[in-house]
């Protein structure tokens, strides 16, 4: 329990705030890496997932592929990429994109497929173009599930972004790696607590967003 107190004391110590290695600076870095990875993965995975969900084509191939990517251990991938690309943020970023991709893809096609088929068929029959169907019917109706995918991906990435410090001086993972090496366990635990707190805050934010995307559609008759 003493270690826990030490860790909290370490976090609240003013000397560890401000400046290039400060907690505030590293939190921002950590968040930036997380958002960049999720955003990059989303640019690739969401359109692909929406296309699969809308057309019902290519599902098996892409799902198998995403499953294979999911099975790749992030640390192993990071090491490989690090060897190829060298020290810096590129390798961790790519590894995190690969981590986020499957959840985003699954959320996107599952969300589109979950849209009420009767409503989609009727919307097509009254004269919506395929693009209008996707943007005005399928995405709004699937938003809940799509956001669920983004939420899951964000949670995975914010936790795993700790590994960015393995290969570059970025994010909160730095406290863990250097604390481990120098046996400063208060610093190490402080880093872990900060990552956990960040993950919690992000997840709660995403949960609120997800709730907000569920408008009145499922309200029971008054």
């Amino acid at each position, binding site marked *: 329990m003493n270690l826990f107190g030490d860790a909290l004391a370490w976090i609240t110590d003013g000397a560890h705030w401000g400046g290039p290695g400060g907690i505030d600076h590293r939190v921002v870095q950590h968040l930036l890496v997380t958002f960049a990875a999720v955003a990059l993965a989303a640019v690739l995975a969401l359109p692909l997932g929406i296309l699969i969900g809308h057309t019902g084509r290519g599902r098996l191939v892409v799902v198998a592929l995403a499953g294979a990517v999911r099975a790749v251990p992030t640390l192993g991938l990071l090491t490989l990429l690090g060897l190829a690309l060298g020290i810096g943020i590129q390798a961790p970023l790519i590894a995190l994109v690969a981590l986020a991709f499957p959840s985003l893809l699954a959320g996107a096609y599952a969300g589109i497929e979950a849209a*009420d088929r*009767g*409503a989609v*068929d*009727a*919307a*097509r*029959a*009254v*004269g*919506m*173009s395929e693009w*209008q169907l996707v943007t005005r*019917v399928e995405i*709004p*109706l699937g938003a809940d599930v799509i956001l669920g995918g983004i939420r899951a991906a964000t949670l995975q990435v914010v936790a795993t972004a700790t590994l960015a410090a393995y290969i570059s001086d970025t994010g909160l993972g730095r406290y863990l790696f250097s604390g481990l090496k120098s046996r400063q366990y208060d610093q190490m635990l402080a880093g872990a607590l900060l990552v956990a707190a960040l993950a919690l805050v992000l997840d709660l934010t995403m949960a609120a967003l997800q709730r907000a995307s569920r*408008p*009145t*559609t*499922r*309200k*029971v*008759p*008054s």
Partner: protein
Amino acid sequence: MGIEFRDVGKTYPDGTVAVTGFSCTVPSHRTLALVGTSGSGKTTLMRMVNRMVEPTTGSVLIDGRDVRELDKVALRRSIGYVPQAGGLLPHRRVVDNVATVPVLTGTPRRAARDAALALLERVGIDPALGRRYPAQLSGGQQQRVAVARALAAEPNILLMDEPFGAVDPIVRRGLQDQLLQLQAELGKTIVLVTHDIDEAFRLGDEVVILRTGGIVAQTGTPKEIVAAPADEFVRDFIGADRAERALRTVDVDGRSVVVDGDGRPVGVLE
């Protein structure tokens, strides 16, 4: 506007034959009822009119023009469509559901909403319900909204796919009355799909009875079909041997009382 089915057939890629060699003409302002059991291809036939299904043989013509020459989306917007069980967009308010097509075709939203409210009133829905979401209405109300949506773009043709199949008999009766009244005022060309022969007889000017595989068992006005069922299948389908179809009159104190096959009184002959 007339609709012509010219020797159309539909075979799905898996080899299922939905329709074979179907020909029929629906004159303008008339109602054609396609009736048959499930698997009779009636919905397939109806969906060929707005190209939701493309025939594998033959063609469908509207006013003499093959629908394949027309742009799919523009064609569908010009035809009213009432699907089974409403098919309303659950995330949009009732009034916006009705205004869907006018908004797509560029009517300003406010004008489209005003027109939608007037249409709701016309199909018997309190315009105050326009602010609600479809899930907050009863099944019968949702069907009325679907009819209003189909009428919103002022189409000449209406396609109705078992429009009243999902509601209870009393509500269905009310909806049918409403449709008959609307049709008397508007004079649309209607293709209606149903499995309910009584509905087909009530609403259809012309009735086509289909058997499995989209083969026509009989075509005619309701009167013609009741008077002379073509074969055993049709007799059976329309329930020609049911007590309520075999009416006769008996004389009661000088008045002709109509009774059914079981002798139960149905009404008085004027």
